[in-house]
């Protein structure tokens, strides 16, 4: 099947980068577990809390209470900027390469002259990207479980662990969808990738600023990162339906729009 041939090509072309990101994610979570195992996190949290001014104690008391537990620290490892950057990099790269990079290089002319439909081409790229992001997310989970096992920490229960992995995957997949949407109408990979990166950065900053400064809390619902809740997931064991709806909705809508644009487009 032509799509299988393309899938093989995508795997060969992207495996080094995807495996590297997955490997770094695994190692990072393993190291987070190693770090957590050396700390008396509850005592550390109490000491840090005591040093804060009263106003900050009120502002951050709840957060610190949940963060300075073993699972809270492990969850922090899943919300670390490095981890978010790894997932985002895979999402943006694969979204940009799918269409814009092929148009820019001119290779898409020769590929779509083969007996593969535009639907087959598009669908194969989407399938590969979602699988690659699942691999990266799974690597993170493996890193956490290995670290917990190696350092005698309480293991994530299955339900929260899977919920966390799924939430991470859904977040990064929604960014892939947005990157693919930008790529679907672009002629240059750099522009599409740059725009996708700016979207990621804007979303991240909106969550950071909205979370830190109450006056800007209205920004929070606009950030996709606000729908990624490692600490909540580890406590409750399931992804809140609002998060599912927003992230899933962004993913499906962006894929649908991207397909609509790509299907109608004159190439190159």
């Amino acid at each position: 099947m032509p799509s299988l041939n393309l899938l093989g090509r995508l795997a060969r072309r992207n495996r080094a980068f995807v495996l590297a990101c997955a490997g770094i994610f695994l190692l990072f979570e393993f190291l987070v577990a190693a770090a957590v195992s050396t700390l008396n996190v509850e005592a550390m949290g109490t000491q840090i809390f005591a040093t804060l001014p009263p106003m900050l104690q009120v502002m951050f008391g709840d957060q610190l209470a949940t963060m300075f537990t073993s699972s809270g620290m492990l969850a922090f490892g899943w919300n670390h900027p490095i981890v978010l950057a790894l997932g985002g990099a895979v999402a943006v790269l694969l979204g940009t390469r799918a269409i814009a990079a092929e148009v820019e290089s001119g290779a898409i002319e020769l590929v779509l002259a083969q007996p593969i439909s535009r639907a087959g081409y598009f669908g194969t790229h989407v399938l590969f990207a979602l699988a690659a992001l699942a691999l990266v997310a799974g690597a993170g989970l493996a890193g956490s479980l290995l670290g917990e096992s190696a350092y005698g920490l309480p293991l994530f229960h299955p339900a929260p662990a899977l919920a966390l992995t799924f939430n991470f995957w859904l977040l990064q997949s929604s960014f892939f969808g947005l990157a693919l949407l930008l790529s679907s109408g672009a002629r240059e990979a750099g522009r599409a990738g740059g725009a996708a990166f700016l979207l990621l950065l804007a979303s991240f900053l909106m969550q950071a600023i909205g979370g830190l400064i109450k006056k800007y809390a209205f920004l929070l619902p606009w950030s996709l990162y606000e729908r990624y809740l490692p600490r909540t997931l580890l406590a409750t064991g399931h992804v809140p339906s609002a998060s599912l709806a927003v992230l899933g909705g962004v993913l499906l809508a962006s894929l649908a729009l991207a397909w609509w644009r790509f299907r109608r487009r004159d190439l190159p």
Partner: protein
Amino acid sequence: MTAALSLTHVSKSFGRVRALDDASIDIEPGEVFGYLGPNGAGKTTTLRIVLGLVHADAGAVSILGTPASRSRARERLGFLPGDLALYPELTGRQLLDYFAGYRPRRPPSLRQPMLDAFGVGGDVLDQRIKFLSHGTRQKLGLVVAMQHDPDLLLLDEPSTGLDPLVQQTFRATVLDFAARGRAVLFSSHVLSEVEQVCGRVAILRAGRIVAVEEVSELRGRTLRRLRVRFAGAPPPALAETPAVVSAARDGEDWLLTVRGDLNPLLRKLAAADVAHLVFPEPELEDVFLAYYRGREVGADA
């Protein structure tokens, strides 16, 4: 017999620019069909419409009886783009295998014979594309297009980057293709290239097919320009020689515009004392002039 390629009243505009205007052609199996026009005439747009890369505003295209919009129509088709873009990180062998993988039911039976004919050896195939010369990449592009022995071959400026010997090999390959019942659409802006391999040719200008005719008729219509300098007196009644459309002096030289059978003129020149003779390839504009003003000139002659 089902046409190998059929375009029926195909039109395409990009904004205000009419890239293709009511184009209709039929290419039969066993035919090498030329598609001749200057840059920007609509040749590549036509090929892209056939391949489904560009959506036509109107008209219908079928490949071997199957609507061109179906991807399976391209199963039996081979294509060489005008701007060939290959994956630089792949080796030649990986590239050929990758594109062969799109047609598992059509093994690349012609790959090795073509590589041998083009002189592309294993050492070249093991190199990454980015380290290969332009000519070698073009050869690989031709092999990609033809290795699965397609029934219809679309070639967009195929001789670009090929040295004359390889061009000769390539032309022989194309003619062999047609002799085995395959159809070839040969798109080019080089008249001599089209003349050497094609049986029929469509003349395309500003998106319109202005004529479709046999190459022999094309040769007969095309105006050509000849510059000759005589050491002594010029032959008598030079301007009245058959095939001479016009004759003018340019200093010591005679500028002759000729068309059709040149033998009487050549006999006259052979008998004269010629000091200098230049007979360049006709410009495409000269070909078009034959269609826009040919009847007027023909009536005068």
